[in-house]
């Protein structure tokens, strides 16, 4: 399973893409196009990581803390 994850990761990483110049990035640089989760989602991601068995690979927590309640 770990092997397949690495293959997927490598395949995506080395995929060829069109070269986009700086002046062509007006859409890519739009704040809504960000490839990270939003500030406003922070506590939503926390709640999900405590209520569900899975976590990680989303910019949120992978462990640490209690989630006691």
């Amino acid at each position, binding site marked *: *399973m*770990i092997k397949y*994850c*690495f293959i*997927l*990761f490598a395949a*995506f*990483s080395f*995929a*060829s*893409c*069109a*070269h*986009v110049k700086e002046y*062509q*990035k007006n*859409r*890519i640089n*739009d*704040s*809504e*196009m*960000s*490839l990270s989760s*939003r*500030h*406003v*989602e*922070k*506590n*939503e991601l*926390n*709640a*999900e990581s*405590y*209520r*569900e*068995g*899975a*976590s*990680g*690979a*989303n*910019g949120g927590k*992978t*462990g*640490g*803390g*209690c*989630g*006691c*309640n």
Partner: protein
Amino acid sequence: MKKLSLSVIGMYLMMAHAFSQAPATDSTGYKPKKLKLDEINLVSSYYDQTANKSAVMGGRTDYKGNGDVTDFANGIDVTFIGWDKKQRKNTLSVGLGIDYHTAASQAYVDSNGTSRNNGTRIYPTLNWSRENDKKGTSFGLGAYYSSENNYYYSYGLNAFVSKKNKTNGEFSLKVVGFFDQIKMIYPTEFIPIPKIPPADNTLHYITTASGGSELVNSSGQVVSKSKGPDIPSKPRNTLTASLSFTQIINQRMQGSVELDMVYQNGYLGLPFHRVFYNTGKDTIENLPSQRFKLPIGFRLNYFLGDNIILRSYYRFYADSWGLVSNTFNLEVPVKITPFFSITPFYRFYMQSAAKYFAPYAIHTEQEQYFTSNYALAKFNSNLFGAGIRLAPPKGIFTNSLRALELRYGHYTQTTDLNANIISLNLSFK
């Protein structure tokens, strides 16, 4: 002789090259800038959950509302930015979060339901990073601390490096360590009750969830309170290595892939989570002392036309406790104007049960590991809602409030857990 000539020529070229670098005076007029306040982010959230099954009560369903939780979370992040002599960007970020929660199940750490049912969590953070735009590299360090009343405390450290390539791609490697100490607070029925004075059976001590003791008379009135001895704790360590790659695919599309490898060891259960055997007898959840998690997430964002953006996310997750999950997420920001957008979103999540999970009164006394915590059960969940974002160039009301985001989500789990969360983010420049 030929060798010597070549050596002399070589040395001459090296010296010429070295001297050609010497008068490298900056003709651009560049001056380094000291760290200066760049942005302040305030995030507040209110979370309201209703559920009947709680891990503290071992998944019993006859305590209605036992899984109810409210949480009021507030955080501030202050970011400073400066440029050094080598034109490298330095970013320092200082954060502080404070949560106040109420949890119905927390009261039942004491079997009479009289424990304190609320608490506060405090978590400061400190992050520093340096970005070299010429080389396309950056690296950073961070520290984190978190403490929740008497239940636990935790500190964390992280470090990352990243490198951009010539085709608008960026590789990052991040390592994170969390080092927790879990206070061993047991449900009261597992704590021997000392009788003081030994001959007098009309007075007895009740150990509270906060670790203190209360001397109670036969009619249940508290005669005196004592802080009690320090509660022993057990460690829990979480080590994570994250690999990520982001790529601009064309003028309208970009994507990323993130792979986390997470190793946990130590005390991975919680001492106040009950489990009821099929005999009716109760005990404390017991889980293995190691867990390996492997989540891999993919994001793909696409700018459709001039006003609509598709933000998609998929995650596959598997761990050594036999839990497998899939997460799908789609957000569709619609730009009403260039500075105002509305974002409906939907998230679907499904997981299989961990091999140590069983509902109330199913586990047998012969099992080595057992839990009735429904976070490890088989279930599906749905989250849907909408958000708005307002970011006019001249600010909102004042010039310094540059962006406002408001987001509401309704969350349902097939375990009968329902929750609502509303969050507000204010960004000041």
